[in-house]
């Protein structure tokens, strides 16, 4: 049997002894095999779902307030309710995980592929879907292999395909894989990509996937982690699920904490129960900043999110609270930067990401992000001009007009501008490039000015 551990084992999962919903089987290294999965109760949620009516299953998920884990945090049950009475309908699993800092869907696919498959099958059953596409990021070779094996085994054993569990229910799951383009994580771009096209987003409206998705048919796009929660909810019920987490955000989240912490890793954390401070410093979690340092800034929800600073350390890890403070929990990616970090360099790196990943469809994003990158690079290369700083903000405002979230640093007394901001683009990728700029420039303008004044490159962000 082929194994894909050609290189030293790489796994960021940290068992923090907290509540376990989606990582309950992570401690079994062979859980990806169907025998192990079944031995620990796998595919029983599917069996019990088949015993009740599809709408009852959907109602249970809706009742559980299962928030989407792909970034936007939209309740899955509510989204499912938008499907018009049109067939065929499709389910597309978003496993394209590429947001900077995000690292959880890959683990879920590698460690527990059957849990995801079971979640897909239950969702398809609930929504009258016969074909599900599992879109895995192209660069995730091991996840693809494990899912392929899992699907083959589940087909062979009668969990997928014709007559599931001997019933008349038939559902196919097709494994699809990408080829390297961050934008394809955006749901309408994902659909374009699945149709064999360039991954360029469609405008919503009119192309809301639930109404006009794959092949212009109603389509539900859900994240890997979102769907991995489904079997647990069906087995244990919505009420039990809601015992975890906060009222608005029940359950747990998988969070990847990277950067300058002592114990970076992927943790399953109960929503709203922990603050950033506990997460960064707590013994059960990241155990402090390296070299006993302090946080200079941190990204609370992936590269697209506006930055937070020490004032926000005591916010609970919960979508509403973070949103009100001007950023987002997004894809559960927290990047911590200590005091040694060069704000200009960090800012450029995130901006460069968006410039490189712009699909090129909208003028403001295509031209604006690369212009932002060029200006920042010039400043870093020592060729900055004083007027470049306002120019940067101005170019940003052409992609994302109006004030960018400001409450994050002007905490006291100021009303938060909700994220996402206004945009002149089709999708939020272009506007996302503005987040690091406004974040860094508002907070650390003197650092930028110093670079311009020095007129030379500062070497080494930090090490």
């Amino acid at each position, binding site marked *: 049997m082929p194994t894909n551990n050609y290189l030293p084992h790489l796994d960021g999962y940290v068992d923090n002894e907290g509540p376990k919903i989606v990582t309950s089987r992570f401690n079994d290294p062979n859980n990806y095999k169907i025998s192990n999965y079944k031995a620990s109760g796998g595919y029983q949620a599917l069996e019990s779902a088949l015993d009740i009516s599809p709408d009852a299953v959907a109602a249970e998920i809706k009742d559980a307030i299962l928030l989407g884990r792909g970034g936007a945090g939209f309740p899955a049950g509510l989204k499912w309710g938008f499907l018009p009475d049109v067939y065929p309908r499709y389910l597309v699993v978003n496993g394209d995980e590429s947001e900077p800092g995000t690292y959880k869907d890959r683990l879920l696919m590698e460690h527990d592929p059957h849990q995801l498959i079971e979640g897909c099958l239950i969702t398809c059953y609930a929504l009258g879907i016969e074909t599900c596409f599992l879109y895995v990021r192209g660069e995730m070779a091991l996840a693809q292999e494990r899912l392929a094996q899992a699907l083959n085994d589940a087909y062979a054993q009668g969990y997928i395909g014709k007559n599931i569990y001997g019933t008349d229910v038939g559902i196919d799951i097709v494994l699809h894989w990408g080829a390297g383009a961050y934008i394809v994580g955006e749901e309408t771009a994902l659909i374009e990509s699945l149709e064999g096209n360039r991954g360029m987003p469609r405008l919503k409206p009119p192309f809301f996937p639930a109404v006009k998705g794959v092949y212009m048919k109603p389509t539900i796009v859900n994240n890997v982690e979102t769907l991995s929660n489904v079997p647990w909810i069906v087995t244990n019920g919505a009420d039990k699920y809601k015992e975890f987490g906060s009222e608005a955000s029940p359950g747990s989240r998988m969070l990847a904490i990277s950067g300058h912490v002592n114990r970076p890793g992927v943790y399953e954390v109960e929503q709203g129960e922990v603050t950033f401070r506990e997460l960064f410093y707590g013994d059960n979690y990241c155990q402090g900043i390296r070299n006993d340092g302090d946080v200079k800034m941190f990204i609370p929800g992936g590269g697209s999110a506006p930055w937070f600073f020490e004032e926000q350390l005591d916010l609970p890890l919960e979508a509403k609270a973070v949103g009100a403070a001007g950023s987002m929990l997004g894809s559960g990616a927290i990047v911590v930067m200590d005091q040694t970090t060069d704000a200009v360099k960090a800012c450029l790196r995130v901006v460069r990401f968006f*410039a*490189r990943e712009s699909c*090129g469809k909208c003028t403001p994003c*295509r*031209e*604006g992000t690369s212009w932002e990158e060029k200006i920042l690079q010039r400043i870093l290369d020592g060729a900055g001009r004083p007027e470049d700083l306002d120019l940067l903000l101005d170019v940003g*405002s052409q992609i994302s007009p109006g004030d960018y979230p400001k409450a994050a640093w002007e905490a006291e007394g100021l009303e938060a501008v909700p994220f996402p901001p*206004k945009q002149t683009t089709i999708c939020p990728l272009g506007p996302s490039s503005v987040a690091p700029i406004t974040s860094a420039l508002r907070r650390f303008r003197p650092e930028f000015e110093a670079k311009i004044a020095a007129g030379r490159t500062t070497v080494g962000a930090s090490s």
Partner: protein
Amino acid sequence: MTATESSAVKATTGVPFTLNGQELHAEEGELLIEACDKNGVHIPRFCYHKRMESVGMCRMCIVEVDTGRGPALQPSCMLTVTPEMKVETESEATKDAQDGVLELLLANHPLDCPVCDKGGECPLQDNAFAYGPGESRFVEEKRHFEKPIPISDLVKLDRERCILCDRCTRFASDVAGDSLIHFIDRGSSTQVNTFPDHPFASYYSGNTVQICPVGALTAAPYRFKARPWDLTGSPSTATVDSSGSRVLVQSSQDKVVRIQGVDSDAVNWGWLSDKERFIYEANVSEDRILQPMRRAVDGSLEPMRWNDALKQTSEALGKKAAAIGGARLTLEAQHVWQKVLADEFSVVSYDASLGDDVSADVVDSLPKATYDWAFNAGSVVVVVGQDLKEILPSIYLRLRGVVKDGSVELVEFNYKSGSLAKLARKSVQSRPGELAKDVKQAFTATPGERSSDLNCLVDTDKPLTVIFSRPNVAESADYLTEALQVIQSVRPDAHFLPAFRRGNTVGAQLAGLTPGVREVATEDEIIVEQVAVVGRPTAEILQEAANGEVETLLLLGADPISDFPDKALAEAALDAVNTVIAVDCFENPSVASANVILPVAMYGEVNGHFVNSEGRLSPLGARVTAPGLVRSDLEIAASLAKTAPQSNSDAQSSLETSHMLGSEPIAWDLLELSSEGARIKTPTKPIQRVKADVPTVADGLRLVIGNKLWDQGTIVENSRTLAGLCETFKVRINPADADRFGLTAGAEIVVKNAKATASVPFITDSSVAEGVLWAPANVRGFDPRSFVTFSESVCYVEVSAGEQK
């Protein structure tokens, strides 16, 4: 333009919305940008194009819209007006957003307006002027690409100028169906390009140049020929085929330098085929005949004076004379020629069609459809005959559009499947001699035997239009006639639309320049009396000439040696007559045997009218003066009238009252007026039913000679850039037949019948019906008409393996 036109008809019902504080109404489902246009509010745009699906990607048309959830910036080209929507096109936020997009578009755009073909008529330049910031804040190095690269023989692409609006690429894939240019790469490196070694060889490539909002795409024939501010234009109509596409003929320094499509709702929607667009190159061809010529004893041509030429012509026409051609003339010229020939010279043998199209009698007998009627949602179109893409390419685009979006069902009957076969409900492959039988079978089969795809043919709830053309010149025209009559008998409600290859064929029919029974309208009733048979079919004329019964043959821009189905007969006829007079602009195989050549004005050099296949009347505009000693047809005909032996010259006055619309053959009451101009209501009258004979079953394959858009037609051959587009001769055979006859790819095959033998290259092609040998008409390499005997209703050939190459 549209704004002022339609602001007169402001809607008072529909979807209420507020535009800059004004309460207005939009149509149900109308796009905001269109609703604004209608109300005289212009929103800048680049990617939006009325005739294509919006993509909303340039973001220039962004405006502030409040749908009840607070103001947001939305692209007006993607947003349908919803009730109570509030739109601000002048607000600070709108202006800022639009200025921003413009600055970003200009950031990487080269500042080469002074040397750009588009400079002066460039939407980017205009918008920059109207909305743009004063100077660029972009100090970085601009994006670089290799300077203009040819993406086809006709079009060059400068990627540095491209603003990635997706117009050309959308046109290529969505409208033309020739997805040969595409976005390549990603983000700020995105470019438009072709696949290596797969050029943008589309019949429609020129449209991309016209719709490119900047100077990224340029047409090889036009590049650097003129500056937009030097151009003057005349509205006109394309005459290379009978589509009747509306165009603007533009000139600079008395030379036609560009033809642009005009967006006519009823006809071509702004699109043109490259043939319609670039044909003007022939006007300035070096080979053009610029003065009257006569053939010397040694066979060479020598100049002569007009007076002598006219005198000689007049004398020759006074003897036993016949005339062929005239389908490409203006309606006025056709009318005057008919008058001069019949009344002044008593010539009764004349025919504007060359025996290779559908006869006037048949066309007259059928109730006609317009394009709009045919392509209306919910209808059925039956194509009988050739691939519309090859003969009426710009109308093909409209058919493709409605078939692709599913609003019209298409069924085709032909010997070689057309370009829409895959999208068609059914593509029935027939064989020469069996067309009528196959059509009958499809229309009259019992529901049980009929494939369900053909049910639309007999569903009387769906209006049915038959678009027909002569499917094959190597076969009797009667099969087509019978097929049409079968359809008419099963579906008396069916409408018909002829697809003539030659431009003003309907005009010639109306002017009486084609043979047939004529009926004339009187004041109160449309059809009253039958007039005697006039004219004579080309086939008979040529036969008589070959028999030595004709002394003079007048060629009105006709080349029977290249076009008449039986080449040998045409050659024999030209050989046998005493005098051949050619009214033409170039030498061609027929003109080569002319004794006198009268040089005639071309497209863009004469005024007049054109009647398209729908019967729609449209103007032909003179934009430039005819070069040299060239004269217009009308002038030549009128001068001849003066020299005629029994001159009583009615024609003279015809010339003076230069537009003939008050006099026969077109009575005013036959004109149906609409916003798109006049259409001639051609009355229908029955003709004799045809019962075509059943072909004898012979061995071998049945020859089909079909048309390609690019052939060796005289005008194409004399257009510098187009001449190279004509392929070399290859026959096509269904793979099953190739197997049957043991023909191997790559080898030549020997084609043979009683009349001729030839070794020709071939390809297998499953779109060709089994039992058929398909050969292109009039292309380089070989002339398949050598096999045709006009009197035989089906032409059989034998094939065998030739020499291995």
